[in-house]
């Protein structure tokens, strides 16, 4: 027991000295209090419900209903008032309670002493803002502009208010931006050349389709809510055809699955077109009235395309091509959904143009339930008020400078006059998600300051100087729409932000305040404001009319979700295309301007080098969206390690058995992971799913070169990456 021999006097002296030493009163007297008298009105058992919006980079962009008891979330599910979400979430959405309350979240602003050292010190927001602001001003002074500051932000959170980060950086002057997208660029350009812009039919219209072709799309994993409508349609007698090099989960549900050689989908489409033209199955009237360049295209096909060639090229037997072509051409309406994966090839844009042409000659464009559906942006007409403040007076430079997001590392390193010295990273994990991660790391090494805003520790945070903790959707305000369905979803603040987390908008205001404190007028971004006012400012009359809502608050009170007016849910219903000619352009001068063939011709696929004969594809994984969600332990409990899918025939040639550790290697890099032997992949291809980073020291991009797609500059400023033209060799490790 306690030692009685030490006198009380000594002891009291100790106690007093402790307080004096720390310059604080005894706890509970002068020190800032953690505990305070309880507010009188507090009672237990208060249950509230809030509407949230899942802001992830996902077709489904769900409307969420969040149950909050005593200020903490107890259940998160779909909003029944949204007929697309239908009250249900995907598996990832169901893990949101854990995302919010995992003890592993980033809680406080912190500074790392020595990039990658793991030596972090906690700093206040004020200190963080000061460090960043001072660096910005220092750079501005040294280089005469803010161009050495580079923003790399993309799709981690598509809340419209999150554009505040872009806005804040525009508000300090002209900066360097990671431009482009690893997502859809080639396909979006293709649809841009053909129709003016990519524009898709409402996915709820799968119910109206007579025939559905899912072309390189796997909605079972990437858009479960669309899959519901597809299954419903199937049950009503609609035929579902899936064209894919892999037997995906969706292909497993098809009435007919066609295994096409990767990167030859364009040849298949052109073969089908040849058959349709030969057999007079095309819609002459539609083509005559609504398109230009059909005759040139017709002539090209007649001259260059044969069914035997198509069969040879694609690996799909001629009779199958003929049958599918006939079925597709005679079904009314027939619906094609082109997946993003299909265009991640060096000829991806050209292939999408060929498929567009297939839909056009059969008159399926502009029809309810039909269409050649890829992506759309018709509901995104917000004010983007957060980006509206412009550069401050006297900013150096004339405009923003761009580096290609898809070749980020190399282009950052190559940038000079001025070089890039500071990086701001938000809603992205480039060290895991970019090709050639080692080069990206080198680019980081060149920086004076790397600031990353994130929810969880990941490779990019590990290699940053300052990390800023951000809120989950449930802790901030926002508004979301989808690039696929036609709903607008309100995001209410359901709970207080945990720890010291802040939204990108709050961070933008805070930094602007600090910049203006140090150097008045150095940042045009507002220094304060209620997020609720900010979000109201996003809605203009057009978007209010489109969705039939009076205001954000009105929508919040009335179900939290609204669908756009029917008039826009059928793409090109008015057949007024947004091309230079106003018609569907089989012959596109615009395409020629950008250095492409004006017609939807077949361009050759990337050929496997001799040493690396096996294609390694990295499609999306069902328990993650890029590098998000996969690391959550609820999902790790289902699948706790990455794997590579190998066809038994291929495995045999390398004596690889199920579960063996396999080394995947090419000139860019290598990694080792367990094999899963399966007939779901062809024997010339292996598959490693995208976005796995937790618990391994590699990412699927270790072997991916920054090989460009054929298109992307027209709509996205930069070409995309041919992720799926990644060739490797494998061996038993």
């Amino acid at each position: 027991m306690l030692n009685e021999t030490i006198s009380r006097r000594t002891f009291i002296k100790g106690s007093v000295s402790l307080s004096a030493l720390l310059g604080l009163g005894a706890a509970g007297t002068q020190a800032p209090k953690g505990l305070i008298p309880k507010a009188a009105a507090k009672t237990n058992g208060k249950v509230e419900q809030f509407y949230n919006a899942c802001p992830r980079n996902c077709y489904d962009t769900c409307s969420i209903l969040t149950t909050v008891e005593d200020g903490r979330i107890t259940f998160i599910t779909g909003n029944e008032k949204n007929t697309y979400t239908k009250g249900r979430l995907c598996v990832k959405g169901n893990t949101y309670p854990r995302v919010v309350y995992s003890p592993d979240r980033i809680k406080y602003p912190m500074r790392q002493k020595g990039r990658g050292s793991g030596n972090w010190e906690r700093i206040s927001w004020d200190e963080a803002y000061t460090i960043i602001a001072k660096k910005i001003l220092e750079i501005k002074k040294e280089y005469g502009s803010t161009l050495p500051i580079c923003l790399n932000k993309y799709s981690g959170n598509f809340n419209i208010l999150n554009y505040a980060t872009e806005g804040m950086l525009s508000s300090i002057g002209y900066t360097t931006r990671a431009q482009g997208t690893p997502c859809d660029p080639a396909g979006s350009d293709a649809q841009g050349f053909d129709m003016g812009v990519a524009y898709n039919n409402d996915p709820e219209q799968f119910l109206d389709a007579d025939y559905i072709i899912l072309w390189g799309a796997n909605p079972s994993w990437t858009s479960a809510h669309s899959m519901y409508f597809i299954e419903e349609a199937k049950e009503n007698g609609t035929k579902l055809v899936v064209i894919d090099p892999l037997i995906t989960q969706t292909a497993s549900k098809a009435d007919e699955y066609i295994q096409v050689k990767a990167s030859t989908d364009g040849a298949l489409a052109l073969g089908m077109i040849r058959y349709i033209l030969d057999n007079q199955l095309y819609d002459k009237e539609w083509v005559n009235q609504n398109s230009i360049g059909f005759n040139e295209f017709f002539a090209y096909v007649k001259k260059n395309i044969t069914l035997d060639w198509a069969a040879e090229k694609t690996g799909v037997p001629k009779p199958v091509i003929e049958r599918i072509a006939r079925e597709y051409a005679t079904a009314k309406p027939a619906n094609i959904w082109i997946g993003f994966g299909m265009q991640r090839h060096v000829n991806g844009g050209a292939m999408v143009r060929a498929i567009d042409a297939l839909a056009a000659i059969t008159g399926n464009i502009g029809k309810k339930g039909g269409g050649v559906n890829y992506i759309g942006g018709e509901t995104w007409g917000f004010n983007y008020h957060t980006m509206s403040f412009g550069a401050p007076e006297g900013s150096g430079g004339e405009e923003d400078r761009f580096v290609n997001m898809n070749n980020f590392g190399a282009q950052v390193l190559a940038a000079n006059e001025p070089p890039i010295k500071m990086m701001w990273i938000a809603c992205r994990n480039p060290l895991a998600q970019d090709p050639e991660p080692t080069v990206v790391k080198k680019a980081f090494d060149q920086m004076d300051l790397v600031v990353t805003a994130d929810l969880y520790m990941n490779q990019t945070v590990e290699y940053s100087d300052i990390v800023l903790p951000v809120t989950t959707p449930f802790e901030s305000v926002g508004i979301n729409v989808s690039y696929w369905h036609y709903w607008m979803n309100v995001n209410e603040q359901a709970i207080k932000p945990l720890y010291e987390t802040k939204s990108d908008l709050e961070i933008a205001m805070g930094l602007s305040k600090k910049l203006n404190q140090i150097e008045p007028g150095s940042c045009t971004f507002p220094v304060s404001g209620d997020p609720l006012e900010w979000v109201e400012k996003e809605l203009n009359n057009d978007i209010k009319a489109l969705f039939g809502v009076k205001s954000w608050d009105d929508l919040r009170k009335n179900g939290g979700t609204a669908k756009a007016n029917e008039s826009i849910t059928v793409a090109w219903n008015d057949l007024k295309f947004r091309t230079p000619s106003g018609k569907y352009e089989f012959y596109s001068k615009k395409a020629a301007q950008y250095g492409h063939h004006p017609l939807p011709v077949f361009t050759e696929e990337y050929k496997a080098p001799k040493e690396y004969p096996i294609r390694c594809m990295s499609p999306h994984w069902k328990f993650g969206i890029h590098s998000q969600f996969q690391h959550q332990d609820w999902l790790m409990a289902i699948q706790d390690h990455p794997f590579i899918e190998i066809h038994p025939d291929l495995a045999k040639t390398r004596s690889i058995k199920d579960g063996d550790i396999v080394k995947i290697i090419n000139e860019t890099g290598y990694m080792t992971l367990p094999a899963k032997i399966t007939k779901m992949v062809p024997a010339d291809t292996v598959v490693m799913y995208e976005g796995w980073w937790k618990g391994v020291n590699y990412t699927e991009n270790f072997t991916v070169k920054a090989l460009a797609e054929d298109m992307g500059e027209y709509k996205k400023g930069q070409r995309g990456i041919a992720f799926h033209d990644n060739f490797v060799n494998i061996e038993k490790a």
Partner: protein
Amino acid sequence: MAKKLGFLVNIERCIGCHACEISCKSFYQLEPNMRRRRVTELPEELVGTPVRAFVSTACNHCDEPACKKACPVGAYTKREDGIVVHDQNMCIGCQMCGKACPYGVPQFNPVKKKMDKCSMCYDRLDVGQLPICVEKCPLEAIQIVDYNEVEPSNSVSVVPTFADPSITHPTTHFILPKPGKQTRRF
């Protein structure tokens, strides 16, 4: 006539997404490895052509529940509507039910030190709501059926990996996927 409630699992519609499993876990705030519903992968050659197929199973609310016979404290009751309910208050955690169940349904909860299993959300059913898994399946692949009223003609009572139904007469039925046409290169 009394009801005979059972799950009808439509494998044709199931995309193996695990949303049923995780929504149940989230709703009941179950410990990480506790699952009242589980999604398992079926053999690739299930319907002849190779496909990715999954089946989602929970408690099968058997007509002759082996758990009920094995339980030494009588924690199991079979309600009139056929739901097999496990009373966790009575359970002493002997785990015999888990051994006796041909489907290994009752799981030992290492925190509560008691067994745990699906109750078909009977408290929700009793107030006119659907079980969480039924309500939350994005594909509407799980249904509750009163087998005394309808015997779905296209359903079967057994799938590969599912134990012989003659042991406990489970009420769960399955709709098997229709084999699609495949043109494969390999």
